[in-house]
C-alpha cells in the first residue's frame, strides 16, 4: 500500500441490529448530551423547559431494532443542499456538523438526507439538529458509551459509509 486512504482515519458509529434491545437509552443519553446539563440526566430532563431532540433514533419493527444517526456520508447531500453554508463537513474527519448560528431552518437538508436522520429543532430559533459525533464532549458519542448491550460501536470507515453493507464487520 502506497498511501493510507483518507477513509482509514475516519470513524463512524455502527449498529449491531442483532443485539439491539430497543431500550432507547441511546436517545436518552443523546438528549442529555445536547442539553445544557451534559452529565446530568435528571437535570437535563427536568430542568430543560423544552428538551433537545434526540439525534439518534431507534428504528424498530420488532424484533428488529437498531439505532440510526447521521452516517456522515462521504459526499453529503445535506452539505450540498444547504443554502447558507451552515452544514459543513470536516475535511479531516469527514464529520458533518450544522452551525446553528448560520442555520436558518429552511429544512433543505432534511429533504436532501437519504437516511432521514436530520431532526427539526424548535427549541430556540428554528434549526436543523443532527448527530455531531459528540465532538464537543471529546468525540466519544454518548449513544455508544451508554449502550447497555454494545449494540452501537465506533468503527473505521472501510470504503464509503454509503455502501450497502453499512459498515465493517466487527
Amino acid at each position, binding site marked *: 500500500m502506497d498511501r493510507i486512504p483518507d477513509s482509514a482515519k475516519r470513524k463512524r458509529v455502527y449498529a449491531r441490529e*442483532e443485539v439491539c434491545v*430497543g431500550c432507547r437509552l441511546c436517545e*436518552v443519553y443523546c438528549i442529555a448530551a445536547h442539553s445544557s446539563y451534559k452529565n446530568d440526566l435528571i437535570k437535563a430532563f427536568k430542568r430543560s423547559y423544552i428538551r433537545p431532540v434526540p439525534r439518534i433514533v431507534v428504528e424498530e419493527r420488532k*424484533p428488529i431494532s437498531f439505532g440510526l444517526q447521521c452516517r456522515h456520508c462521504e459526499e453529503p447531500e445535506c452539505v450540498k443542499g444547504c443554502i447558507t453554508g451552515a452544514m459543513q463537513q470536516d475535511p479531516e474527519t469527514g464529520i458533518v456538523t450544522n452551525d446553528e448560528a448560520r442555520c436558518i431552518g429552511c429544512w433543505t437538508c432534511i429533504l436532501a438526507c437519504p437516511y432521514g436522520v436530520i431532526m427539526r429543532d424548535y427549541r430556540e430559533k428554528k434549526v436543523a439538529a443532527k448527530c455531531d459525533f459528540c465532538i464537543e464532549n471529546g468525540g466519544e458519542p454518548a449513544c455508544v458509551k451508554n449502550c447497555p*448491550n454494545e449494540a452501537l460501536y465506533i468503527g473505521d470507515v472501510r470504503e464509503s459509509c454509503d455502501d450497502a453493507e453499512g459498515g465493517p464487520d466487527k
Partner: protein
Amino acid sequence: MSINYLTPEFVIERDRDRCIDCQVCVRQCANLAHSFDEEDQKVVSDDSKCVNCHRCVVLCPTRALTIKRNPLEFKENANWTPKAIREIYKQAETGGILLTGMGNDMPYPIYWDHILLNASQVTNPSIDPLREPMELKTFLGRKPEMLRVEDGKLAEKLPPQLELEMPVMFSAMSFGSISLNACESMARAASEVGIMYNTGEGGLHRNLRKYGKNTIVQVASGRFGVDPDYLQAGAAIEIKIGQGAKPGIGGHLPGEKVGEEVSATRMIPIGSDAISPAPHHDIYSIEDLRQLIYSLKEATNYEKPVSVKIAAVHNVAAICSGIARAGADIIAIDGYRGGTGAAPTRIRDNVGIPVELALAAVDSRLREEGIRNQVSLVCAGSIRNSADIIKAVALGADAVYIASAALIAMGCHMCQKCYTGKCNWGIATQDPNLTKRLNPEIASRRLANLLHAWAHEMKEMLGGMGINAIESLRGNRLMLRGVGLSDRELKILGIKAAGE
C-alpha cells in the same frame, strides 16, 4: 370472575425526583409491569406483575427504581407462613401443580458453609502462586489399574480422557430451555478457557458445531437431537438419568418454545411439546445402563469418554458403584440445589439430598470397593464460588459442574421465573425480542472473567495449603474440618471437626 386473593409479592418504588419518564423500564419489562400513561404523560407501575428480576432497575439511567418485598403482613404464624398461605391461594385459584425455576431455595443446611480449609503454618511451607507454577489441569475419564512403561513411554493406550484447564465445566442446559445466545456464550467461554460446556437434552445447533472440542453432548430420555453426527460432534457423551432439581421427573418443553431453530436442533416438529420421559424406557437396571453406555462407545469407536449424570438421592453410593461397574468413565452427581428451567415446586424443594454428603459417600464407597480409579466424579448442584470447588475436590470430586453461577454471570437475577418463558435477561426464553438482549460477546467475556477469577482464587487457596497441583488435593479430606456438624454428618463427610 371472583376476586384473586393473591396480593403483589413485590412493590415497585419509583423515586419521582429521579424518574425522567424515559420509558426504558416500559420497553424492557416483558411482564408489562411498567406502562406509560399518555394522559398524565408519566410512567406508572403495576406491582402485581413484577417478578423482581431487576431488569428495569439495572437499566434505569437515573437509578429511580427499587423493588422491595411487599411489606403487607399476614397475622404472624410460625406454621402458616406467608409462603404456605400464598401457595394455597395460587392452587385454589388455578387447580394446577406449582411450578418454579432455578434451584431449591429452602433453608436446608449448606454443608459447604460448615466446612473449613486448612493452611500451612511453620511446619510446612505455603506456596505463593504468583511466584511459583500452580497446576489446575484436570483429566476426566477412566484411569488404568496400573501403568506399564517401556522405553520411557506408556506401553498401553490410556482410555479416552477429557482435558480441562481447570476442574470446572458448564453443566447441561439445553437449547430450548435457554436461548441459543446463552448456549453460544457458554460454548465460546468454554473454548476460550479450555473447559467443557454441555448441550443438555436439546441437540446441538449447527452454529455451535465448531465448538465441538469443548462440548459434551447429552443423551437423555427423550433422545432429542441424537444422531451419529451428534455423538461424534462432542468431546464426550453424557447419559442423563436424573437432575438434582427434579429427581425422578422428566422434562417438558412446551410447544410454544419449539420454533424453527429448536425444532431443527431437537429434530421434532415445530410447535410440538418436547417431552422427556421420567425414566429412560430402555434402562430399568444397571445392566440396561451398561448396554446404552457400550452402544454409545461402540458408535463412537471407543474414542470418547461416556459420562452418566444422576441426581443425588438416598442410595446414591450404591447406585454410583453400579454405574462405575456398568462402564461409565465419568459420573456426575447433581445435588438437590441444582437448578432447572422448570420443575414442580414440591419436587424441587423436597426431593434429593445435599451433594456434599452424596459426593463424600460416593467417593468413600468407590474407594472401599477399589474402583475409584475407574470413574471420575463430577460434583454439581449449586457450586457458588471457588471455595466450594476446592472443598468439593477435597471431598473427592475430580471436577465440578456450574450452571446457576454461569447464568448469574450472564445476567440471571434468580427470580425463579424461567418456566414462564419471559426471561427479561434473554436467557431462559425463545422470544426473539428477549433473546437478543443477551449479547454472546459480552456474556462469554463475563463467563471467561468469572472462570479466570476463580482459577486465581483456587490457586491462592491451594498455595495456602502448601499444595501446587489440584491433583494433590483430590480426595484429600484431611485438608477439611467441619464446624457445627453432628458426629454423624462428620462421619459421612469423612472429615474431622475443627480443633481435631
